């Protein structure tokens, strides 16, 4: 059940700041290109900045750094965006949670904001808390009707499974625009573009990278968990999975490859980010979507699309 009162608060402007995610830009560069191209089609300019650093979330989530030491880094990034007079659009659940949670934390506690600004003053910046941070999912959901009008490739007969990722709906609950247990916004977007929904039991299950901390715990907890999710996914025979977080994308994509290599199973569902899905529906050049960087090949997927005439042979 989408939370209408929060959706109403989401602001749409002509240009937004694209907060580049580490995993997105390094492992899957197609996310950045398809985001910029797709939003261009929806009359929105995405601005990037070379001054932007990592959100700092990874260091906190893995208990490497204290929140107090990453907060000034968050404030610095937000200060840079404030100087550009833009609201932020994030592609990653981690960036989104981290930026919103810390910006609310600082906005609601003036003494904290003051201390952070003392640190920022050493590099000549100030965090004022004047602008908002949105997830790309929220912006795309808000632009749903415009998307419906401008869809170039109607994805009729293609079955998509969805995966929201824990850190959006369960992360900072005050701002998530949908219910944590029965979300529908991603499904609504997919159906807007003509796609079908492949329901599977473990839809709301974590991909395995976050809470089980794959990097710290090696794979003991994470791998069986991910296998459970992928098995459920295999049963539904979806053509692709749509995710809203580069970390989930990376984990679901590469874990399938890893399990195949170890002969633990046979997994072949391609995983794509929502902006790649949007780019596909809005008719962006398939090469710009960057499917080639994914570990699980998109060849059968694009073949099916070509058979059904959704993609041209030349695409």
């Amino acid at each position, binding site marked *: *059940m989408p939370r209408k009162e929060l959706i109403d608060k989401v602001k749409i402007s002509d240009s937004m700041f694209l907060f580049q995610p580490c995993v997105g830009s390094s492992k899957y560069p197609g996310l950045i290109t398809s985001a910029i191209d797709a939003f261009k089609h929806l009359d929105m300019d995405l601005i990037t900045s070379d001054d932007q650093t990592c959100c700092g979330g990874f260091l906190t989530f893995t208990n490497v750094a204290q929140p107090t030491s990453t907060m000034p880094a968050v404030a610095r990034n937000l200060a840079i965006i404030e100087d550009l007079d833009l609201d932020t659009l994030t592609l990653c659940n981690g960036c989104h949670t981290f930026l919103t949670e810390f910006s609310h934390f600082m906005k609601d506690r003036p003494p904290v904001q003051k201390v952070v600004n003392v640190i920022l003053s050493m590099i000549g910046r100030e965090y004022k808390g004047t602008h908002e941070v949105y997830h790309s999912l929220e912006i795309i959901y808000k632009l749903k009707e415009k998307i419906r009008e401008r869809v170039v490739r109607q994805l009729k007969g293609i079955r998509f499974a969805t995966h929201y990722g824990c850190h959006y709906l369960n992360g900072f609950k005050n701002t998530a625009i949908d*219910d*944590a*247990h*029965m979300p529908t916004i991603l499904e609504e977007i997919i159906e807007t573009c003509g796609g079908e929904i492949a329901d599977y*039991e473990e839809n*709301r299950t974590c991909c395995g990278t976050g809470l089980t901390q794959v990097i710290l715990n090696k794979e003991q907890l994470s791998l069986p968990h991910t296998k459970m999710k992928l098995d459920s996914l295999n049963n539904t025979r979806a053509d692709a999975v749509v995710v809203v977080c580069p970390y989930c994308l990376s984990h679901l994509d590469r874990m399938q490859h890893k399990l195949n290599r170890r002969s633990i199973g046979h997994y072949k569902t391609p995983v794509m980010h929502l902006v790649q899905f949007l780019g596909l529906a809005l008719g962006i050049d398939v090469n710009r979507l960057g499917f080639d960087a994914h570990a699980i090949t998109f060849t059968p997927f694009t073949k099916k699309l070509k058979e059904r005439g959704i993609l041209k042979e030349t695409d």
Partner: protein
Amino acid sequence: MARVGVFVCHCGINIAATVDVQKVIDAVLKLPEVKHGVEYRFMCSSPGQALIKKAIKDHQLDRIVVAACSPRMHLPTFQNALLAEGLNPYLVTMANIREQCSWVTKDRDRATAKAIDLVTRQIKRVIHHDPLDDIMVPIIKTALVIGGGIAGIQAALDIADGEQKVILLERSPSIGGRMAQLDETFPTLDCSQCILTPKMVEAAQHPNIEIRVNTEVKQVDGYVGNFKVAVERRAIYVDPSKCIGCGICQAKCPSKTAPDEFSGRISTRAAIYMPFPQAVPAIPVIDAEHCLKFTRGKCGVCEKVCPADAIDFADTPQQEILDVGAIVVATGYQEMDPAIYTEYGGMKYPDVITGLQFERLISSTGPSGGKIQRLSDGKVPQRIVFVQCVGSRDESKGHTYCSGICCMYTAKHAMIYKHHVPEGKAYVCYIDVRAPGKSYEEFIRRAIEADDVRYMRGRVAAIKKNDDHYRVFTEDTLVGRPVTIDADMIVLASAVEPNENAKTLARILGISFDADGFYSEAHPKLKPVETATVGIFLSGACQGPKDIPTSVQQGSAAASKVLSLFAKKVLYKSPQIAEIDEVSCSGCLLCLNTCHYGAIEQVTTQGKTKARAISGKCQGCGACVSVCKGKAIAFPGFNDDQLYEEITACT
């Protein structure tokens, strides 16, 4: 000069241990007005009162001060002593030297000094007291019972048996309430309809009861003994005086797609319908929202087939004013909609149903004729999981309180399921089992031991749909491990909550409600069926979650309160209520907004706005007096002379 007598009570050692009572007597006897002073162990006892009566005679006393406990406790006792001697009861006051003095300190000297002070103030005050007469109010000996559930029916029957007139008001087309929806009742497993129907029929046939269905309260004016209640019967498009209740219209109606409220919307009904076969009165109503005559302008099948010519498409809502002397509120409860429990599927899964829906499913008059089957495919469920405390005891999504009845009805559901499907498995996921009633704990044990219902302690985390079955994720906290149960059907024991429009009705009636929206009783222990508004009583689950036995008890309790009110020829009200002097009233109406009881009305006298106190409604709280800038409100017993004397007597 007034002749004041002072009587100081020891209250055993409660006062005397800390206050030197003799010293108090000695001190006040120095005042010229005090003609007599005496101390005694228990002033409230018969000898104590005799002491006062004798002193009044012997010393020609005309004012009395009793230094003892709180006037709330014993002022009426001493007022009666004065009355017996022919003195006006408003010429006695009490100085509270127990709660306000001896109980709060151990310092004997200072306590004695304070006691002298408190008594002196009352002496100075009582000199200015005037004799007051109680106000006489007539009583209209007709009671209004709002709500035709078991609590309302019981209250109506008991009042009617006491030879008083009752009007029984019901919002839906039939009386019977929630109990009519139930299949069997705990802890005896007797058929709910079989024990309810005789009561419904008795109410309908009772010469002193007038049943008005399809009717709601719109406005209430007046006060105890003299309420004016505006009610409205909605348009039902059937003439009750002609209808013979044959049911042909219902059978022939072509529009049969309206969700059936009586079955918790798990089935459909015709647009002209009686909610259930035993409905009282047995008169159908037309639901204009689904009737083809109203939605498409043509049809009228019922009109053609009716042998009594009772269909009247021109029916309009009927307003009426009822004059009643007392009101019993028995509006009951509603089952919470668990849609916000999205972890349980948000009521989107067809086989996840609520307790009341399951009740209709197992009822022989229910949509499946008493056969337990899944709503999705009609198969008999082989495994059912009953989830308790859905919306109860849950601060995050539901209510903080315990709904009280769910533990029992869940055990009953599981038992009845096992009786219908002996090879099936029933699981109950609970937090605690609360079964404090008579034979209740034994009932739970019977479910576990005789009927092999599996009880598992732990809150259900999630329910997921997988193909045609459901997976319930829970834990067994007694062995400390997570548990997954595959089930065919899930029954959520949804919370009891106040009716949607309970707050609206509370505002109409002028009664208060608690944080959860249940109506508040006047005292949680000693006045369980009275409200803060005199003459309005509570009965049943509108006051808090209740099972049938407790609702019936409360119905009878409310009826006895009404009967003892009606046993009086006239009512006497305390004269200590507000009087507004129209000449000095500036018409600012600050008092009107301050009054909690709606006892002040706006009037226009010679073209000027004035406030007027309604003596019947005023409860004598004095709030209006304190806000009146022009000192236009008098309050006998609390006038300026008396209060200033009391204050200036402070040392």
